[in-house]
């Protein structure tokens, strides 16, 4: 009261009053928990977050520095209902005050997390999470069961990865509601159904990312119990890498995401594919190697070619020679023959009746053209033909 009176009587500069306000607000308002709705959320490139917290009647400027934002396990969005802790901070130059936030969680998440922690402790104590009872995930499954929403992105991711990495792997989809109050029961039913009918040799149970509440079905008693009782090895694949659900602890294997679960179940098959490819490559290499070794043992083909060429050349030469000889012999023979022809012709010419006629003799033929050799054949009173060297005359035999 005394101070108030003093303040009212004193004239203060803007700086003085601001300093007083800063002192009063910062020393009087710390260790606060404030709930409200996020609006005007602006993440700066520096890593700090600027936003306004509001409810139906009031709003409060807020800032969260980079040193604190990394601890927040979700990405704040417009309209998110959150609880922040921190203190008030006065910015003298502008005459404004704001909430400097140290932590941020979604409204109600504190209770949910506490509940989950308690449930986790309970099942842990009951031995549900014991590493000794984890089943081996088959390295080369024949059919993989997927318990998830048949319309969710998680299923598409899983199908896409499996068809790329292990196209031979059969897939059985066990559609389940993965969000809301009925979700836990449908998920648990699908796990039981797969077991009852022994429909597959490994089960992926999961969904894509979502809020803490969205993922809650995977932490419900029904799901925990069904996974615990499953004869088929179960891979829990809930949300993103930072998300978790109690199904992660009771399952035989936790995959950070549904895609990662698909990669895990197809790894063995992918490994064998690569192994077969490698062996096939090895076989081809060793065959090439064997052939190369053998090739070295065969005498050089060029040397062989040369000797063959040499042989052929020699024979060609001989052949050409023989040809030449033949031609010569042939010519010689023709020469000789023509000599003989000339001689024979001469001889013939000497013997020719024409030659005799040329010497003045005459050939005599009777009327029938027969040669007349003697006196008797030339009958008196008949005509005969006398042939001279230059022609013939008809004559009559008189006596």
């Amino acid at each position, binding site marked *: 009261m005394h101070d108030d009176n003093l303040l009212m009587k004193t004239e203060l500069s803007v700086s003085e009053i601001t300093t007083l306000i800063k002192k009063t607000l910062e020393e009087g308002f710390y260790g606060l928990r404030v709930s409200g709705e996020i609006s005007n959320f602006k993440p700066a490139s520096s890593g700090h977050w600027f936003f306004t917290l509001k409810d139906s009647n009031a709003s409060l400027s807020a800032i969260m520095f980079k040193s604190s934002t990394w601890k927040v396990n979700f990405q704040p969005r417009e309209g998110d209902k959150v609880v922040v802790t921190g203190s008030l901070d006065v910015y003298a130059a502008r005459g404004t005050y704001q909430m400097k936030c140290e932590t941020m969680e979604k409204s109600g998440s504190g209770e949910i997390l506490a509940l989950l922690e308690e449930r986790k402790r309970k099942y842990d104590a009951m031995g549900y999470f014991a590493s000794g009872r984890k089943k081996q995930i088959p390295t080369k499954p024949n059919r993989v069961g997927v318990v998830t929403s048949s319309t969710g992105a998680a299923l598409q991711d899983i199908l896409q990865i499996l068809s790329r990495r292990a*196209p*031979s792997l059969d897939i059985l*989809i*066990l559609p389940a509601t993965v969000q809301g109050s009925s979700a836990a029961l449908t998920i648990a039913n699908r796990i039981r*159904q797969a077991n009852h009918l022994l429909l597959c040799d490994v089960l992926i149970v999961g969904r894509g990312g979502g809020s803490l509440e969205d993922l809650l079905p995977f932490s419900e008693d029904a799901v925990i119990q069904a996974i615990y009782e499953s004869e088929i090895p179960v891979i829990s694949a809930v949300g993103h890498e930072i998300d978790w659900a109690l199904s992660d602890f009771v399952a035989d294997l936790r995959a950070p995401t549904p895609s990662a679960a698909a990669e895990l179940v197809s790894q063995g098959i992918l490994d064998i*594919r690569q192994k077969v490819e490698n062996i096939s490559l090895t076989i081809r290499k060793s065959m090439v190697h064997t052939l190369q070794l053998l090739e070295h043992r065969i005498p050089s083909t060029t040397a062989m070619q040369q000797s063959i060429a040499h042989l052929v050349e020699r024979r060609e030469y001989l052949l050409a020679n023989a040809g030449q000889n033949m031609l010569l012999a042939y010519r010689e023979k023709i020469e000789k023959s023509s000599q003989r022809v000339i001689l024979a012709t001469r001889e013939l010419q000497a013997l020719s009746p024409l030659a005799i006629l040329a010497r003045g003799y005459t050939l005599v033929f009777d009327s029938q053209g027969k040669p007349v050799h003697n006196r008797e054949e030339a009958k008196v009173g008949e005509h005969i033909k006398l042939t001279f060297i230059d022609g013939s005359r008809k004559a009559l035999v008189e006596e």
Partner: protein
Amino acid sequence: MSFETDVSRVEEIAQKLNASDTSLEESLALFEEGMRLSKKLEKTLSEAKSRVEIVLGDESDNAEITPFE
């Protein structure tokens, strides 16, 4: 032959082919067999069309299974 025995046979063939005392005739026969088997295995692993099915009924002892999509 089963998948597993095929894989071990191909491995065995690769080993024999690497051995220096294998004759050419034997090598060729082994090579042919190895390539045939590994092609078959690769085909089984990468080309075989998998069945994608979905369970319709939700009773645990009577499920109707049909192809998905």
